[in-house]
């Protein structure tokens, strides 16, 4: 959970270690100087349609309703959703695309706020994955394996680099509240076979951001302090007769818990945020648990030294009714995500904060189910190419990387596999992905399995 192992280190005066950065993780430091000190990953669960947001394909307009040529499909494995469909008609995006910023990035009309920060972003149009379904797909993006049971990215970082913060975890998960769509699973931010302390702490949107962090009704911080002092005396007395480091670790943990009871409410309290900042994130910024509030909370956590902040926003799985669905999700996420980039830049934090926006796969250029051009429609899962964007922390701003075919179905140039994405992220964080390993069941495991190439073309 991100900081349990610190208890003893804390007692031994670990503030010096914290200054060196990453010194209390298993790596004992960085492999090379990091460009990014922290990551905010805005995960868009369900598979947002790249063809309606980022990847402009005029040809689909011309061929709207025609069958996807076999030569383009090339025997690609389809999901059980549309795999047995007798016809697979191409579907043009109903949204207008334009170029934005000095970099001339193509974006659809669904993303007016993202358009304003386009020059700060790097769009990767050629992400690809191996999964055709959500469960394995999200698991792959988050842990480098389609089957649950491997550590998530944040857990690897906590294991490798430790925690720089005394009273907040290094790995925090925030989930947009009240969303439908494909379910999330707690193993996505789990520690897999690493010790469980490396798993994320999920901050909830309710009154208890961390499980039972608040004192129960009728208990205040002051009388809790009295009890903890008594407990400490009991432990010190016991330690005198039983000199066991487990006891000192326990004392330290209870002190840290007490500090967390102050620090967690502090970080989740937006009352000192100026109105201008709240306005930037949009009308939902003060409604805890919305994507907007989570983006702002992510910035506050980042400011306080949390290394990996994982957001999830669900409901991008538009097999049907795409128009209504994608409009709604874009509206909920466009402004806050753009504001986060802008806000970090204003504070000088974007230089060493890596921001990522993306889902587990893309969507097909053809319609799932029955299609009538002009009417609402749906797109199936598409693992062969999809778009994500990255910004800040060592990423080349104002770039579009990779090229897909004119049908938007296949990669033509510069494909980025999930393992490459992970390798690059670790590289930016000062880690050689081949050297962050954990021996389990007799084998050295790593986030990138036995694969992964750093995507040099997106590095600043």
């Amino acid at each position: 959970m991100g900081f349990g192992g610190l208890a003893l280190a804390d007692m031994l005066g670990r503030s010096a270690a914290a200054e060196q950065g990453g010194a209390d993780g298993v790596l004992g430091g960085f492999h090379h100087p990091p460009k990014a000190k922290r990551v905010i990953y805005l995960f868009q669960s369900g598979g947002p349609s790249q063809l309606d947001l980022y990847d402009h394909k005029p040809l689909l307009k011309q061929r709207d309703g025609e069958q996807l040529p076999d030569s383009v499909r090339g025997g690609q494995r389809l999901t059980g959703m549309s795999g047995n469909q007798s016809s697979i008609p191409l579907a043009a995006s109903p949204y207008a695309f334009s170029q934005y910023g000095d970099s001339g990035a193509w974006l659809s009309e669904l993303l007016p706020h993202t358009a304003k920060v386009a020059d700060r972003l790097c769009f990767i149009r050629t992400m690809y994955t191996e999964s055709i379904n959500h469960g394995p797909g999200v698991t792959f993006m988050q842990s480098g394996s389609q089957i649950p049971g491997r550590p998530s990215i944040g857990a690897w970082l906590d294991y490798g680099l430790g925690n720089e913060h005394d009273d907040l975890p290094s790995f925090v998960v925030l989930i947009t509240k009240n969303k439908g769509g494909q379910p999330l699973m707690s193993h996505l931010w789990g520690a897999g076979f690493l010790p469980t302390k490396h798993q994320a702490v999920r901050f909830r949107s309710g009154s208890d951001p961390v499980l039972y962090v608040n004192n129960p009704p009728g208990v205040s911080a002051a009388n809790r302090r009295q009890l903890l002092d008594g407990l400490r005396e009991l432990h010190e007395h016991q330690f005198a007769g039983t000199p066991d480091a487990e006891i000192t670790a326990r004392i330290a943990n209870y002190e840290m818990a007490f500090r967390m009871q102050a620090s967690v409410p502090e970080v989740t309290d937006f009352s000192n945020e100026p109105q201008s900042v709240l306005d930037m994130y949009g009308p939902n910024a003060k409604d805890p648990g919305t994507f907007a509030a989570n983006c702002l909370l992510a910035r506050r956590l980042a400011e306080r030294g949390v290394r990996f902040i994982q957001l999830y926003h669900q409901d991008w799985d538009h097999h049907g009714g795409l128009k209504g669905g994608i409009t709604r999700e874009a509206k909920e996420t466009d402004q806050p995500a753009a504001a986060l980039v802008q806000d970090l830049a204003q504070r000088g934090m974007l230089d060493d904060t890596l921001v990522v926006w993306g889902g587990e796969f893309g969507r097909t250029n053809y319609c799932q189910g029955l299609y009538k051009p002009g009417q609402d429609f749906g797109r199936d899962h598409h693992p062969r190419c999809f778009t994500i964007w990255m910004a800040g922390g060592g990423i080349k701003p104002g770039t579009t990387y990779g090229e897909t075919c004119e049908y938007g179905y296949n990669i033509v140039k510069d494909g980025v596999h999930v393992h490459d994405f992970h390798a690059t992220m670790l590289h930016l964080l000062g880690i050689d992905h081949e050297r962050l390993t954990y021996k389990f069941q007799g084998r050295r495991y790593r986030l990138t399995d036995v694969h992964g190439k750093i995507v040099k073309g997106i590095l600043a």
Partner: protein
Amino acid sequence: MGCSKRIESVSLVAAWLLLAWPAAVAYGADASPARLSFNRDIRPILSDNCFACHGPDNANRQAGLRLDTFDLATAELDSGTRAIVPEKIDESELVARIISDDPDAVMPPPHAKIGRLSAEQVETLKRWITEGAKYEPHWAFVVPVKPETAGGIDAIVSEKLAKRGLKLQPEADRRTLIRRASFDITGLPPTPAEVEAFVADTSADAYDRLLDRLLASPRYGERMAADWMDLARYSDSYGFQVDRPRPDMWPWRDWVIKAFNTNLPWDQFTLWQIAGDLLPNASDEQVLATAFNRLHQQESEGGSVEEEYRVNYVNDRVTTFGTAFLGLTFECCRCHDHKFDPLAQKDFYSLFAFFDDIDEAGLYSHFTQSVPTPKLRMLDQTTAAALAKVDEAAGEAAAEYEREESVARGTVAYWIAGKLPMPVALEAAGGTIPGELVRYSFDGRGADGTFANELGSKEPATSPGDTMVVDDSRGGRPCQAIKLTGDHPVKTPVGNFRRSQPFTVSAWIKPAAQYDRAVVFHRSGAWTDAGSRGYELLVDGGHLRWSLVHFWPGDAVSVRCTEPVPVGEWTHVAVASDGSGKAAGLTIFVNGHPAATTIVRDSLTREITGGGGDTITIGERTRDHGFKNGLVDDFRVFARALSPLEVRDLAAPGAIAAALAEKRDAEAIGDYFAAAFADEPAAKRAALEAARRSRDDLAERPPEIMVMRDLPQPKMAYILERGEYDKRGAPVEPDTPAALPPFPADQPKNRLGLARWLIDPEHPLLARVTVNRLWQSLFGLGLVQSPEDLGSQSTRPEYPEILDLLAWQFSHSPADGGIGWDMKRLIKTIMLSDTYRQRSIADAKTMADDPLNVWLARGPRHRLPAEMIRDGALAACGLLVEKMGGPPVKTYDMPDSFKPEKADTGEGLYRRSLYTFWRRTGPAPVLESFDMPKRVVCVARRDTTNTPLHAFVLMNGPQFVEAARVLAERLLVEHDGQAELALDRAFELLTNRQPDDEEQQILRRMHTAQLDWYRSRPDDAAKLVAIGDKKATAALPAPDLAATASVVNALMNYDGSVVKR
């Protein structure tokens, strides 16, 4: 598919004999202290640094060099050099490479990024080569031999400690000892009375009797089951993404508890779970045990590929088998030969072949609650008797019907023979076919786009405009028919038949291709998403297949034509079900005549209605393959099983009239009369249907549980290239890995044979793996630190002699001097040792030198597992409900789970933790925070973390706040409101010892401060004491109760409460 799975494995015997070296050299330990041992000193270096490229993996071996066997390591290489030349380090290329400064030559190579060998490792390898480079087989693959020493565990430990200048610690004090033993055996603390009795009992066998008492407690089975549930990946939900609750697997958990409590011998415990279903005359209990193999995750996410997940499930069975029973990791060789252990990819799929022979689906049903097959019906005696009764009644009704039918046929025979006049009803019928529900000729569409029902103005069929009416010709005459797109359904408004209802569907069809799979028509909610529940006519590999389904494939009846259906031609097809729910009751008529069929499935046990899609749909089904470009015409549905003559008439109108006029084919006319018009058979037919309906209603009730049952014909298994489900390579037969003992020649090549192979006392792994895990459970650390992996990458045990001593005893019968797989005796053997009984603190240097307590220079000490922390607190506070077994319960924290669930009220809040509803994607957060695994996969070892989050749970969580208040209330009442005495007693209940003077002073100071606090804030006090489902009842002032409760709660966080010492 071939059934040549059963072959001999003679070559394996030879391979095994090569490995069966004398065990004395196996560990290589201490024969001559000066001499290096391969297993102790060399294998770890080679395995960790070299085997990845120069080990057992055939596909990725570099330079043709293999260092894991003597012969190959000393063989001449292509380069003309030899990696190892015994006794000659100067000629050994290995030495030159590990000391080289040339980045192109040095080993391990820089690109491997595992660093250089240390100077010490280099010297060790050089010395070993100088000494002759002797190899030994990996210790865990060598059968333990009968121990020669009589001294047991303590002698072995003492001898080794003496070499370090250490000795065993004195025995822990009595209170510590009974606390340790009680938690270890029952998972619960002792009561104060039990503690006092044990302290007072100075007889020599007091401790021995204590262990017997604890082992006889029913709480023992619950405590042991909790560990086994981690290995079995037990969960009350299916797992993966959808993770639907599956609240029907708990009977297996209760069986495990019972098996431990009745001390079922471990070999039987093992065998039943692997293969209880295959035992001769297997009891329900033995079949139930095999649910172990079905506890893996299952998926139902829409659009998932079924075969991908089926393979996944079998993989999970194999890896769980490997981890739980062999202590070997098979995950690697799923995709390639193992890099460290002599396990080939073929070995994995040979084991796979044992576990894939069940009639299962790769996806469970989203739209129904059907239990995935194969399954066991859990019958209590009352239901079993009631079922037998209705079965008998249905049988009698069938016999009566047949009698009346035969009388009716006789009437017709007499008429045709001229001995009787034509039966009146037959004459009145005039050659009609009664019971028709709808008829669609698809001759054009109505103004509203629908297809008219020829039998009346109501109940038209509907379809989107894409389904065209086309002109065609049949039998030389023009006709109109619908042309299906495969994606657009034609929906009728009828057809929600139960399995007891006879019915017939008839149509002309013209397939456009030799479909691998195509749905002609069906009544179901969906394909895999509904387990195909309903009925369906498919083209399957070009042949017509007709099925009634509760859950495909294991709970269905299905017949398939032996001849393919013609492509591009019109064929008349009628399919009927007689209401028996048996394959024999299904008929496919082709062009008016019953077609020859083979039985595909004959195992329907439950209803076929439900799951959505209540009426017949033609030509399309969600996510299935439609009847693309096929034509359908004259679609008719009858609420009867038509007689052959009637079907002939549908295919060739006028057939009935002609038969009657010509008075030929008495049998067909007799069937027609009996089936359609005769009064007596009709009454009996109604009675039969009613009897079957009653039987079916009753059959719906008993709960079912997923188990193993092999198909009569085993499935062929294949090596899957790179582990991918759709990359089938060479077929493989079921077999055990070549590096392990050979499969017994006299056993069947199925799971039963596999289980018997495993429980042979001469098997090197099962007993060792079991003993090692038990040791871990008692000491917090296994003798081998990786209980999931005893392979060559595992840490060499400090005390292999103890492992072998106990493993040998455990697996051998009392007649041979062993204990015959007696788990309680094994526990007692370990717990009676001085090694277990010693106190858990040693001198500071020893503690620092051996932080994990590998040397056993002190007794066990570790934080209690999740269940024991919660159960211990509930027990100490008198809240624990000691009810055994039953459906899972939902604790206070379930609303805070990632998948929130409403908490129970009352009893469910206070049951033992192993009964907590366990949902994999959102487990109960309190238990999870104390390191309970999600149980996604088999786990042999839990973490034991110590984090600030524990403080939140224990100080702020309602379970513990309430428990503290309940205890405070009870103790205050017992001690007439004297808080000091109450707190002393609380301390004793939670830690099993009395507080010393200083501790008493600390408790008093804490209490005084709290009392002052709450007396000035009575509202706060009232809020605190109101927490929990159990309300405070005693007439105590809220501040007094709150103050004592607060201190009790703080004590629950004390090391003495949550750590076993």
